[in-house]
């Protein structure tokens, strides 16, 4: 098996590779950096879902709801939509509604966490498969509301979505504009890359710390055997709500960043297929194992994009039946069935003897 110690022990190598990636990709076109950006957003989603599914063992099939909440929250608070649709808001905010990065992140996290708790609450007593279906239902309910809340009052603008969303600004510089350093120019996609990379690094740190903590162990105990967990005094109800809430915050933040990055959100981006894909990322990567989850996210996010280049000729060969989107769905679904049959603990599962990755705090036994 891969020597994780060597890979991550060589932190400087990894860090340099990540920092230099956009410049390596640039000659091939900004599109590739954009792929990296989206992959990072998906890594955030996978990390969040990993808390719910990987640590606490709750199969949430509606996780995209939190992505949507974060995205629409930012969309509503940083675009002309609300001021256009509601004159009274326009008078209150004569400059229009714009949010700074420092306000977005905690707000998106907080609102998403709230949704996490509210949507998680009805599922607390359900067994695994029912939990899955109910959370799927919630994801769909959110999508239906997003699609239809343009009447009687136009909150979400229905299927048309919300456009002209502000870019995120860091120290006054909107990331949608390239940064002119004099000796070189950094394109917008690269600026976003570094922002997202920072968010991912912070998230990985947070997840790692949660994993190796009293709460993390409690979540895992619930995953392993809820009855025994209760018998050992764990308040499983509160712990599950905590998992839902904590997991949702990642979705919310990722969603807000997505809205800023794209400049546009619509209900189409928040379908069941997205939820399933995020579940696939976590499960196929390695449930509960951070490196595996990240690998799963990167593979499933970047692969379809990479496929576009292969799909062209295939599409011609099959008379238009196999395009990139279909190919991606085909491969993801086959992967789901295949991995469960042949490598059920994922592509990169936790190492057998329970020796954790080099612990940051060094409180390994």
């Amino acid at each position, binding site marked *: 098996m891969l020597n994780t110690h060597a890979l991550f022990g060589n932190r400087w190598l990894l860090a340099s590779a990540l920092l230099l990636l956009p410049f390596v990709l640039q000659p091939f076109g900004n599109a590739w950096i954009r792929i990296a950006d989206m992959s990072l957003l998906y890594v955030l989603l996978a990390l969040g879902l990993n808390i719910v599914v990987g640590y606490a063992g709750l199969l949430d099939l509606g996780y995209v709801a939190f992505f949507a909440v974060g995205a629409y929250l930012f969309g509503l608070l940083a675009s002309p939509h609300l001021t256009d649709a509601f004159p009274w808001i326009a008078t209150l905010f004569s400059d229009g509604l714009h949010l700074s990065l420092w306000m977005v992140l905690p707000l998106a996290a907080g609102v998403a966490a709230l949704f996490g708790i509210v949507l998680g609450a009805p599922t607390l007593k359900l067994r695994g498969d029912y939990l899955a279906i109910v959370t799927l239902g919630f994801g769909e309910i959110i999508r239906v509301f997003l699609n239809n809340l343009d009447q009687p009052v136009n909150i979400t603008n229905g299927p048309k979505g919300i456009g002209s969303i502000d870019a995120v600004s860091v120290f006054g510089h909107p990331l949608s504009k390239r940064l002119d350093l004099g000796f070189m120019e950094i394109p917008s996609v690269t600026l976003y890359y570094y922002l997202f990379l920072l968010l991912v690094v912070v998230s990985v740190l947070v997840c790692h710390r949660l994993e190796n903590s009293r709460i993390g162990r409690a979540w895992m105990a619930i995953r392993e055997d809820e009855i025994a967990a209760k018998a050992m005094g764990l308040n499983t109800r509160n712990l599950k709500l905590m998992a839902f809430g904590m997991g949702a915050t990642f979705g919310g933040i990722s969603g807000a960043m997505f809205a800023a990055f794209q400049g546009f959100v619509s209900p189409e981006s928040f379908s069941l297929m997205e939820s399933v894909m995020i579940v696939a990322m976590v499960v196929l990567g390695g449930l509960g194992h951070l490196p595996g989850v990240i690998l799963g996210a990167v593979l499933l996010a970047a692969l379809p994009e990479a496929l576009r280049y292969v799909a062209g000729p295939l599409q011609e060969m099959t008379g238009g039946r196999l395009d990139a989107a279909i190919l991606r769905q085909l491969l993801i679904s*086959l992967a789901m069935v295949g991995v469960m049959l042949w490598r059920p603990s994922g592509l990169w599962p936790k190492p057998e003897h329970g020796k954790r990755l080099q612990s940051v705090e060094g409180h390994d036994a």
Partner: protein
Amino acid sequence: MDVLLQQVINGLVLGSMYALVALGYTMVYGIINLINFAHGEVLMIGALCSWSLINILQPAFPDLPGWVILLMAMVLASLAAASLNFVIEKIAYRPLRNAPKLAPLITAIGMSIFLQTIAMIVWKPNYKPFPTLLPSTPIAIGEAVITPTQLMILGLTVVALAVLSWLVNATRLGRAMRATAENPRMASLMGVKPDVVISATFIIGAVLATLAGVMWASNYGTVHHAMGFLPGLKAFTAAVFGGIGNLGGAVVGGLLLGLIESIGSGYLGELTGGVMGSHYSDIFAFLVLILVLTLRPSGLMGERVADRA
């Protein structure tokens, strides 16, 4: 009042289709504790197969009456769907019978998407009109109307339920199925082969789903690769509503859900003062599911799940 009668008729028709699909879910869950996420896709494959078959049969036998063609297509499509379901169970679900709970769920979801994608490739993603093979003049019942297609659906459902009932109660296979559903270990000790019973369950479920699929296509006039998803989900809700594992419950749950959806979406606009229109009718099923699982998780008629202790 006349509107209500129409809604009731529509609701029963819709409910019949839900009932047929719900039976498939409930039988599988009762025996192997698996939500077969891909079951809705069996409906879709059955419907698309029948569409293809009709497009072949009609020009081949131009003199045959429409209902005969429809029947032939149903039978052949059922065969195809049954074989498909048999293979799926054998390859994808059987190896995972003793795996931890997450694995079969993931596989089932993957299988569902796989089938949809294959359908997209084989039949192309566009909405296709389903040929009208039955006369379309509606028959008046009081102030409401019912079409021959809807009558066919109701009639065929009754027949299918009667046949299933006979199968489950009066045949050796049926006894074996009931025994396995109650206590698999005991049943196998008595000489019942669980693999055979489980395969039979999948085959029967596929036949019922195909019937429902053809009915659905006839009733709504179109077929496409995504047509199985929502009905599948709703039928599962119906199965839980009635009591998972309980065959009678699946039928009752299906009919009730159809009625709730039909009557509810009709009156939803009035009830909410125009705030929510019938677009929201899709989430009824989910709301019912959440209510049932919160308030009465064993369903209306009680669940019957295998004693796996």
